[in-house]
């Protein structure tokens, strides 16, 4: 009681403002911005004279990786105020703040013989702190690009909080010649189109290569015998074998289960197409669907418990989800148009698909229950989406109109931003994105 009286007295004495504040000022922010984060990556410090060029090349690959995501924007070297000449020297944050660099990557490279050692550090410029600890990678000179990708993956992961995808490879169908005389062969490349290697010749048509979960093998369909048959190719040895199939049947659209031991595929027999699974080791096949309609393009959920596929059982081509052991399927696509080539995201939260509607093709994503459908692209012909290892980017094939139309690979962020071509020496289609390399 005494205190209250005293407080009242004090308020009348004019000292109330001093007592007005009790606790911090609280506000809530619900609207921000979405824009590329400015960063700087000076040439890596060369610790030996032979490392100068390597330091420049690695810095360029790191910058290209980060910029290519659409989430980062590189501040060119011409804008840098500070010059990083000593990897261990303190960072002049003020100089980097002045050019609005929010992240700074510094590094050093040491080339000795066939071996290259790369160190790097990442700084949060405005916080004036290092983001994570410094890392060091050791590799061969020939593999310098992989080291650069690994640095970029680490930077990406530390800033965004999700895994990277730069040190990964893509298998796809390389295409040459006109539409009427197109020659196709399997090729494998880095995610950014570098280091292309061909896995097959172009004597027979090949289709739909699919990486295994750990990237050691590739499934694909070939018309070598005149009928489509499924092959398993070992990426390391480039040895292959055909999956067993019955006489008079056609098998196609294969895809590995996450465990790498099982394959799901479509088998066409007597004019009817259904989905089967097969144990690769035992060649034991199991029929998963049994309908007079066409069921194809199966894709496992990341945990291997479910399969999404396309079917025209409702009269038009739509997407369905069923248990990995078969049984009743539930339809998840209900929009206008036709849906096909569904692929489950590595995160498990989204399904990418090809949609044909009103004379145009789209790449889109939807939740696994079919909700929140969102079309990301629109063109004369877009098809065959595949997910990056972190589930953030989709690569697909785009074909231009006309007899001279070219098929090439594109990538797009799942938000629909950052649509960009993937440079390949020849045309490309049917991409399959492999996992991050060890």
């Amino acid at each position: 009681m005494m205190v209250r009286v005293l407080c009242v007295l004090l308020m009348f004495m004019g000292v109330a403002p001093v007592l007005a504040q009790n606790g911090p000022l609280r506000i809530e922010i619900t609207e921000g911005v979405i824009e590329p984060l400015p960063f700087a990556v000076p040439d890596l410090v060369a610790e030996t004279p032979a490392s100068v060029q390597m330091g420049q090349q690695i810095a360029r690959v790191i910058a290209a990786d980060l910029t290519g995501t659409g989430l980062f924007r590189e501040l060119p070297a011409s804008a840098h105020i500070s010059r990083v000449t000593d990897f261990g020297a303190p960072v002049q944050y003020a100089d980097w703040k002045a050019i609005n660099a929010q992240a700074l990557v510094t590094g050093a490279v040491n080339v000795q013989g066939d071996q290259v050692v790369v160190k790097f550090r990442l700084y949060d410029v405005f916080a004036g702190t290092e983001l994570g600890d410094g890392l060091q990678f050791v590799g061969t000179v020939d593999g310098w690009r992989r080291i650069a990708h690994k640095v970029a993956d680490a930077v990406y992961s530390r800033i965004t909080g999700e895994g990277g995808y730069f040190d990964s490879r893509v298998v796809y169908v390389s295409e040459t010649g006109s539409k009427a005389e197109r020659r196709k062969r399997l090729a494998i490349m880095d995610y950014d189109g570098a280091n292309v290697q061909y896995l097959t010749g172009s004597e027979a048509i090949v289709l739909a290569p699919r990486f295994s979960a750990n990237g050691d093998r590739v499934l694909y369909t070939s018309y070598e015998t005149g009928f489509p048959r499924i092959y398993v190719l070992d990426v390391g040895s480039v040895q292959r074998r055909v999956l067993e199939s019955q006489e008079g049947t056609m098998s196609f659209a294969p895809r590995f289960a996450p465990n790498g031991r099982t394959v799901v595929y479509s088998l066409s027999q007597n004019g009817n197409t259904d989905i089967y699974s097969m144990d690769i080791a035992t060649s034991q096949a199991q029929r998963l669907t049994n309908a007079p309609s066409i069921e194809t393009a199966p894709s496992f959920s990341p945990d291997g418990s479910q399969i999404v596929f396309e079917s025209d059982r409702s009269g038009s081509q739509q997407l369905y989800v069923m248990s990995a052991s078969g049984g009743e399927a539930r339809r998840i696509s209900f929009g206008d148009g036709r849906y096909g080539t569904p692929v489950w995201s590595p995160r498990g939260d989204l399904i990418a698909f090809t949609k044909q509607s009103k004379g145009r093709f789209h790449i889109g994503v939807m939740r696994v229950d079919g909700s929140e459908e969102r079309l990301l692209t629109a063109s004369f012909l877009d098809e065959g989406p595949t997910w990056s290892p972190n589930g953030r980017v989709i690569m697909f094939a785009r074909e231009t109109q006309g007899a001279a139309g070219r098929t090439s690979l594109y990538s797009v962020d799942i938000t629909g931003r950052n649509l960009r071509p993937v440079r390949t020496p020849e045309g490309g289609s049917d991409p399959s994105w492999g996992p991050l390399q060890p």
Partner: protein
Amino acid sequence: MGLIGWVLFGGVFQSEPLPFDTTEVSVISTEAFEALLTTGPQPDMATDVALPLAPEVDPDPVQTPTSDETVTTDAPVVAPEPDTEIAPTAPEIPTPPVPEVVDVAPEAPQPQDLAALAPEIAPVPVPRPSERVAPEAVAPPPPDAAPDPVEQEAVTADEGAQTPAEEQQATAPEEAATEIVTEAEEPARAPRTSPRPPSQRPSPPTQTAQTPAPSAQPVPADTSNAVNDALREALAGGEAEIPAGPPLSAGEKDALRVAVSSCWNVGSLSSDALQTTVVVAFDMSRDGRPVGSSMRMVSSSGGSTAGANQAYEAARRAIIRCTGDGYQLPIEKYGQWKEIEITFNPERMRIK
């Protein structure tokens, strides 16, 4: 035979002569007749010819025949064509009725009437794609303007000026759209219905009302200490020198909110971090700058620990990066904003 002869000649079929009219004529000689022809009156040609009926003329002035036009009419019924060519008298063409002239011109449709109809047929505006997504759409800045949240014109030194002006570069906010526009959503191919699920308007940001506290310190159990504390803080001591002033106005809070939100970049956040709301607390110096060492995450909700850390980093960058020369806060109310807690809620940013 006798009977037949009796019938024919015996007068059985005798009939009365038929009555007929007779006219008496006078017989004249040929010479007298010729004389009559030469001295007799000439036939009245003009009057004998029936006048052609006047054509029905359309009162429309456009169809009014002019004097050069040939009027086609039905041929007059004339029994014997006269020996001499006689031009028929031009029919009298009735004058078309002259429309009543009104001095006041009819009112023409006003342009604004057309404009008023325009929105019904105008295409639905679709946001332009832009590399930057912000709460407010911003048009592309002038090419020579440096990106800056504050728009200002360039100032160059004027040699003739008495007081030299400080040179400054033109600045303008960066181009921005209010949401991400995919290739499938670009205006030329915009779908009629948005594939985006309808978003609910979030509830207005909750603010903690800065109501004046009855005392500067929580009331302790020991009332004698409370009295002493209150007296000490009110009448003397360092903290008492902090001008608290009245609570910040809504406008002053909004200014701070807008300043920080313009630097809160969630574009590089993972989906996990975008699920995470973080509360960041920090102290402020009198010049409106946050004290970096005081910055801390008070709490987080909605995501994993890793997501919370990423969200906190982005929030911290926003607070520091947009400090500039200090947030514009009233120094006379320093006690009200000496400590700040900001809740960063990315819920609305997930569907951009």
